[in-house]
């Protein structure tokens, strides 16, 4: 009981969310390597697989990161689904008329936006990491897969929608995590919200830069 109360679940969401956000910062920085050209991008991709060598063998570091992220995703989704169901049970019959006065648009997209982002992540891994759904196939270089993928406007559009939803998820998520972990107060409220908005905007733009550069042949 103690460990399954609603606030504890929210704390699980907050902490797993922070882990994923830290990964996203590293991810966007890596993406921008695409502007340094094919060689730089591919060798960066190779470096990710050999970080820590020779102290640790092969892809050890990468797999540790992957496992931590997988645990974070599973925990985040478990807490979200559980709280979603709790909220549904708490109001089985809705209002005939309901106005929202304080709810931000971002906060309204948390649940379905999260589901779409999760679906995108699965596609994204199949496309660019494993290459199974990529036109260049699994035995291509990361740079070729990147270009092949985002030359397709449909893929770029799906990417853009997902990344924008992710940005909105973070805009509310960062504020919400601050509250959940008990780090907010009246004085900090505005700052936290402005930071969340600024961070989400910069991260989203950072992610959008590469696919659109490919689409418009700035990267080819």
């Amino acid at each position, binding site marked *: 009981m*103690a460990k399954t109360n609603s606030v504890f679940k929210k704390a699980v969401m907050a902490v797993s969310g922070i882990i994923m956000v830290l990964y996203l910062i590293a991810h966007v920085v890596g993406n921008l390597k695409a502007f340094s050209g094919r060689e730089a991008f591919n060798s960066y991709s190779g470096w990710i697989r050999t970080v820590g060598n020779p102290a640790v063998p092969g892809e050890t570091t990468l797999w540790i990161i992957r496992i931590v992220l997988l645990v974070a995703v599973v925990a985040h989704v478990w807490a979200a689904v559980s709280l979603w169901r709790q909220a549904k049970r708490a109001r089985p019959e809705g209002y*005939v*008329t309901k106005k929202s006065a304080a*709810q931000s648009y971002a906060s309204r997209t948390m649940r379905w936006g999260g589901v779409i982002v999760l679906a995108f992540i699965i596609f994204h891994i199949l496309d660019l990491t494993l290459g199974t759904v990529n036109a260049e196939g699994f035995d291509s270089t990361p740079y070729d897969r990147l270009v092949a993928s985002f030359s397709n406007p449909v893929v770029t559009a799906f990417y853009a929608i997902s990344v924008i939803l992710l940005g909105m998820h973070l805009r509310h998520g960062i504020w919400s995590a601050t509250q959940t972990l008990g780090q907010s107060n009246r004085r900090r*409220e505005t700052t936290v919200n402005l930071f969340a908005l600024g961070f989400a905007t910069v991260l989203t733009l950072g992610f959008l830069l590469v696919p659109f550069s490919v689409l418009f042949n700035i990267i080819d």
Partner: protein
Amino acid sequence: MTLTQDGAHSSVDAPAQKRGMNLTLRIWRQKDPSVKGKMVTYKVTDISPDMSFLEMLDVLNEQLIMQGDDPVAFDHDCREGICGMCGVMINGEAHGPQQTTTCQLHMRSFKDGDKIDIEPWRASPFPVIKDLAVDRRAFDRIIQAGGYISVPTGTAPEAHATPVPKKDSDAAFDAATCIGCGACVAACPNASSMLFTAAKVTHLGLLPQGQPERDDRVVNMIAQQDLEGFGGCTNIGECSHACPKGISMETISRLNHDLLGALRAGARPKS
């Protein structure tokens, strides 16, 4: 131009004095908890802008009684905005368009010809008793779970014996203005009672008298809140916006802080 002339001018101009408003009300009617309810349309005429919202409902009920119909059941007590008994959803907003209680909402907030939807608070821990009246005893049980301090009765202690910093006492008093009306639950998209519980945790947790039970209080109150079937908090802020006492979101952060600290310190709910 003098103030008097101004005043005289405006009172001549104001057409509000001669007649009242005609309104169309759509009210949730539900005979008892076991049957399904529905919205029923009523008309009221000649409503004075100076009436409170509840007085407007009184006018409707007199009309219904005269016609031999069942009057609309709604909760109310002090009608001074301090007891927390009244509270309905008015056009989709808890307590209506002003940040106050339903009894302190006046008909001047509406205009002639308005259509007003009136519904009960909707949350499974607040079952409808009849029409607009809901059972809010779930709040009492949350209080029983920890919203108190255990002190021996007897002579009041010397007030200066326990100093309280001004900042803390102000914040505690702000939280203590919560009247438990349930608007936070009603307005919350998750039907969470977090703002209510957070107000109590803040109010007692900031004062020296609240310290001995601080960890157990927050853990037990949250356990009870979940047990009652309220939703979880997603920090959206509808609650604070709807709260007639303006309890801030800061209280929720404080509750979370206390709860996580209490869990780390090994506090566990009673059962």
